[in-house]
């Protein structure tokens, strides 16, 4: 037995070092690796994901939500949904987790230099736009106008709601919060409506704006239609696919769509790539 080899499907060990409640069912965890050398060498690019282990429950593919400049630890934001995320929610600060990764491709933030960028997240989809947003803002002067549109069913479901103030303080950053009709509260000063409709009437220049959009498949479909009408080339509409995954490295077959293994060839894809894939995501 080769004890020194790091087996692809065997996680490295870490623990929860901070818990932040985002909404009643969405949480952000800071995770630190147990081994300081492993922590030192753990680097990633915005858009990559990790397989987070809760021992006894299994693994869940979660996008890394903090920007790569924050070395030494990672953050993940998850909604309590299935077996593993429910078990993950039962863990507290100090408790162990396993990590594999980082896996997948990343957002082409270098290619966006000089362009306006709109980051659009529906529900827990905000988690996937968080790392590229803060990666871009870490190099603010290289980019044009930044628009952040965060949507949810209700005001109470808005993920990263308390970040809006910090974002608005950054020059050239506009923040719009949107809730579904009926999801507003007394005194709500954000938008009410469906994200694709609100987005389309904001008057952004379709041609000059790169649109990074993550959310439920239905919302994604309407956003692709909206951006087409706005004149945004499909290559400048970027999203992430969220297919079920088990291995994260292209063996297990679960996330296969056409010639694509989402874990290996994605999860970041442009509208151009999506139009070539069978509709199985």
């Amino acid at each position, binding site marked *: 037995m080769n004890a020194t*080899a790091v*087996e692809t499907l*065997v996680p490295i060990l870490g623990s929860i070092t901070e818990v932040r409640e985002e909404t009643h069912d969405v949480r952000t965890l800071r995770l630190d690796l147990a081994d300081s050398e492993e922590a030192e060498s753990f680097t990633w690019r915005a858009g990559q994901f990790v397989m987070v282990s809760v021992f006894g*429950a299994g693994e869940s593919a979660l996008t890394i939500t903090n920007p790569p400049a924050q070395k030494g630890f990672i953050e993940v934001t998850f909604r309590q949904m299935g077996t593993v995320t429910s078990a993950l929610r039962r863990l507290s600060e100090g408790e162990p987790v396993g990590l594999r990764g980082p896996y997948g491709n990343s957002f082409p933030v270098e290619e966006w230099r000089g362009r306006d960028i709109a980051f659009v997240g529906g529900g827990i989809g905000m988690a996937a736009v968080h790392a590229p947003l803060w990666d871009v803002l870490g190099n603010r002067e290289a980019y044009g106008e930044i628009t952040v549109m965060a949507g949810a069913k209700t005001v109470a479901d808005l993920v990263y709601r308390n970040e809006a103030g910090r974002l608005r303080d950054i020059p050239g950053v506009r923040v719009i919060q949107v809730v579904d009709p009926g999801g507003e509260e007394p005194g709500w000063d954000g938008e009410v409506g469906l994200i694709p409709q609100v987005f389309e009437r904001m008057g952004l220049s379709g041609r000059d704006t790169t649109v990074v959009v993550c959310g439920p498949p239905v919302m994604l479909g309407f956003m692709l239609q909206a951006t087409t009408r706005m004149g945004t080339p499909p290559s400048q509409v970027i999203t992430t696919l969220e297919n079920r995954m088990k291995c994260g490295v292209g063996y297990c*077959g679960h996330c296969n769509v*056409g*010639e694509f293994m989402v874990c290996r060839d994605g999860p970041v894809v442009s509208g151009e790539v999506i139009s070539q894939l069978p509709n199985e995501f």
Partner: protein
Amino acid sequence: MEQAGWILDEEQWKAWAGSLPASGCRVIAPARGPRGEAAFTKTDDADQIARGYPGKTQMSPKEFLFPRSETLFEFRLAGNTVTLVRPPRSDNKQVLIGLRPCDAAGLRRLDEVFLQDPADEAYEHRRNQTVVIVEACTEATPSCFCTAVGGSPGGTEGADLHVTRLGGSGRILLRAITQTGSELASAASASWARATEADFAEAGDQAEAVSSSIRRQPLPARTPELLEGSFEAPEWEVVASACIGCGICTYACPSCSCFDIADTGGAACGSRCRSWDSCAFGEFTKHASGHNPRPKQSARYRQRLMHKFAYFPSQHAGQLMCVGCGRCIDLCPAGIDIHQAVLALAGAARAAHRGADEGVPV
């Protein structure tokens, strides 16, 4: 190119093959399974190792490289400290003997999946310990269709050593296909008679005779392209209408490689296993949210065929992820014939193209 080969009589063959366990090899050979079916089994019995068998085994030999279920690690929690314990790995050489050419070709398809970058270490370790001895087919069964997908009853793909029982004569042609195969035979091969051109020709004729007894139509050369364009074709509903989603086709398949990873045990101790899984199952793609990209059985059946005959070939220089063993045809409780299904889809796609070329509505 000069071929390395020897002619052995049955005694010599049995003396050599039967002695492999004594030389420290773990030998897997065809035997009768618990229900009377032919099954690959670990054995030390020289008779069984040397005997040979008609037809094919019920299940493919893939489990000896990619087990039905294997432990990735065991975990133990004490307080907030986790300990992961990897299962021990055997360093014994493993000899798979009596594989049909389709079986060995199937292992090569698994290699494409598990030996990509990064390689799956558990698979790679077993692969490096394994020597494959293929035995040419002396007959074809009604479900065999290797010749329709580019294979041959005498094929050597994936073989380290290759055996042909020369019809009724009791003479066995043993060929070294790889260096690994030569080395396994090297201790005894000096005492064996060298095979002649006539022996190789006889083996070739024999394979040709078995080939011509397979009456199944070759798939069109452009099958991957034809299928690629047929994703929305109504024929999928027709060919998949009988599918009950049991997944036996994927379990029996020598090249199906999909797996699940699951934890068993509790929070204090347990293990993480990977086990064969099937794209035929509704849960295979179902998100935690309940959203399912392939909600219908026909979509799942389409995925299996598209993966084997369109997606995989497009990424592997046209190589199909089907070796024509026909086990899925033998075992499908609904009577689905994958060869017929692919022909139907390719045929429909070609008719659609032709219609489009001629400007005829299709």
